[in-house]
């Protein structure tokens, strides 16, 4: 379980990019953090793996304050998929995927076995892709590699920062489907940041809606649609509903 307790982040001491935010992510659930760009959603993820330190508040992982943990060990225990994919361009796919196990000092055969599993898990071929380099793969394949890298050491938690944001609609669609399969299969606690309402509704167990650094509402998609807590949430979904209606009419 991940718990954020009254977290705030400010760079200039005046404006707050994250403002007094508390939320809990339950064991095994996928929490979608939804918001427009600049609302502080990536900042939240980076505070959880201590790439950014909060100005105020505490974050607990399995009840332990992460402030008292070694950031390096903490990061190795949390899978992280960055916004810009962030594969290492000078390393082969296999080397990219096996980086965390290597940092953790796993023996060679264990690393190789794990890589084979991972290739299968993300629907890549270890024969074809293992010795390729990131820029020889399509965007969708690169994203799969990024997910495989995050999962390599079998972390209990996974942080995903708009992982499908840069992909074309069709690729995104198939990756979202794969994500749903993966989620069933793996039973991991996942925080997934997105600005796409459809993605949030499709992939998430619950959705946390963020606006200007503040939590507007958190709940399942049904709860939110039926009982929007604020005007912002109501407008956000009203627009999408309108859009979908228009789409149905065309059909």
């Amino acid at each position: 379980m991940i718990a954020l307790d009254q977290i705030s982040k400010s760079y200039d001491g005046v404006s707050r990019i994250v403002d007094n935010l508390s939320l809990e992510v339950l064991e095994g659930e996928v929490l979608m953090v939804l918001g427009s760009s600049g609302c502080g959603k990536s900042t939240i993820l980076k505070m959880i793996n201590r790439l950014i330190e909060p100005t105020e508040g505490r974050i607990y992982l399995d009840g332990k304050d992460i402030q008292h943990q070694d950031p390096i060990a903490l990061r190795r225990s949390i899978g992280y998929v960055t916004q810009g994919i962030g594969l290492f361009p000078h390393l082969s796919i296999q080397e990219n995927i096996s980086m965390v196990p290597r940092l953790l000092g796993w023996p060679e055969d264990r690393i190789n076995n794990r890589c084979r599993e991972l290739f299968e898990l993300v629907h890549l071929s270890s024969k074809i892709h293992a010795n390729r380099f990131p820029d020889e793969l399509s965007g969708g394949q690169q994203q799969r590699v990024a997910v495989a890298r995050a999962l390599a050491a079998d972390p209990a938690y996974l942080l995903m920062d708009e992982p499908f944001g840069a992909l074309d609609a069709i690729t995104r669609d198939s990756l979202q489907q794969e994500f749903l399969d993966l989620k069933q299969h793996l039973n991991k606690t996942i925080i997934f940041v997105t600005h796409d309402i459809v993605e949030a509704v499709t992939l998430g167990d619950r959705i946390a809606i963020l606006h200007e650094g503040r939590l507007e509402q958190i709940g399942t998609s049904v709860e939110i649609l039926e009982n929007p807590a604020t005007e912002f949430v109501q407008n956000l979904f009203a627009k999408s509903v309108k859009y979908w209606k228009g789409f149905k009419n065309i059909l």
Partner: protein
Amino acid sequence: MKTASLTAYIVERLPEIWQRIGEHIFLTGISTVTAVLVGIPLSILAFYRPGLRGPLLGTVSILQTIPSLAMLVILLALFQKIGVIPAIVALILYALLPIVRNTLAALQGIAPEIIEAAQGIGMTEWQKMRLIRIPLGIPVIMAGIRTASVAGVGIATLAAFIGAGGLGEFINRGLALSNTRLIFLGAIPAAILALLVDFVLGYIEKVCDPKRNRYRSHRFQVAMKLSIVLVPLFLLIPVFISLSPWSSQTSGYSEKNETKSVNVVRIASKNFTEQHILSEMMAQMIEKQTQLSVERKFNLGGTIICHQALKRGEIDLYAEYTGTGLMAILKLPAINNPDEVYHRVSEEYRNRFNLIWLQPFGFNNTYTITVRKQDALRNQWKIISDLIPMSSKLVAGFSGEFQERPDGYPGFQEIYGFKFREVHDLDPGLIYQALSKGAVDVIDGYLTDGRIPAYNLVSLKDDKKFFPPYHAAPVVREETLNAYPGLRKALAPLGSLIDNSTMMVLNFEVNENKRDIPELVTEFLKDKEIL
């Protein structure tokens, strides 16, 4: 010149060419490797401490702006030593800028999302450096090393000025003897070496670029291994060469100077023809008359460099001129009586420096103010004072040393009370040619230089008796004379052996007829029946 004789000329010098190339690679290689070993850690440190970046880049940039010769002379003064060490230090300092600048740029230039990913998956600072920044930055870092090495090959030609050897040795000697072939003998291999280094490092740069080698991964590894073996091997060439028999015969290189070996006399010369001839004479006499062997450190530099080296015991003897000793070294006022000058310098040298003046060779190589014969005839110039009316129109070409010495242009202006319109700084080997071609109107000639009559030049009479006598004589460390009693006797036959016209002929044979100095000297000494 004919092809056959040119080939012979090169073949004859081949062992020395190889030796000089070896020294050149040694100088450039050692200094570049050291600059890499110093520069890359410094850059990594500055990368982590941004406050250090400005001062570091500033320092290496300023070092780069110091003219190379000035740098060598400064280091020479600093280390109190001629030879390899100051040269290598200078080369290291020059190599630092491209290496530091490129390394810093490489480390800073990694895309932020890659760094964020590396940090996000739990790499430590050092792992980020070792696994991400350095491998991704290798092409840029290698480009810096390549720039530094190629520039180093060029700058290393100047190392010969302070007796560190290398291909610059030929260039310097060529300049001193105004011998173009010798200059090319140094310049062409240096250029080829620079291109070769550029090519080899360019290849290594490609091999090290991780992006270019993905599917050649096997070849990549082989090439890497190969280059790791080849590069040090390349650096070892001079070691092999210096182990081979010929290297001991040729002149002044390297660490051998550091420890004085027993039964070796080290003879230096200044950087012009007459000095080479005199030193070669002394060398041949010593080799013939004693059991001592001679180390020739010819073309060491100007008066000051030779004198300092002698005082410090890096050399044992060279030929000095009485007037130069009196005014340039001892800073005493001019004296006109030759015997008086000789006695004064002998006494002072012995008391102040423990250096002994042996019997003079006999000729007086004074400075002469020299002009073209046709100008002298047209303007009726006979004595220096005749130049006064036209002095504001005349352009002078003087050697650097003459412009600085109290018995040179500064004192000249004081005594004669006039200046020339302009003074160009010219290499002593080039002034006669410059005058005869009309590039300048007046030069500081040496009275014994055969090119004065040969180029239709005339010397004007020193009517105010400004220049003291300049009688050449061997100057030897007292210590050396005591250690090798046979030395004084071996050199004695050279006393009063050479008059002005003889010295002029010998100089002319070398400068204009391109005679080989050792051969000419042997012939001369045999002719005089003393060898």
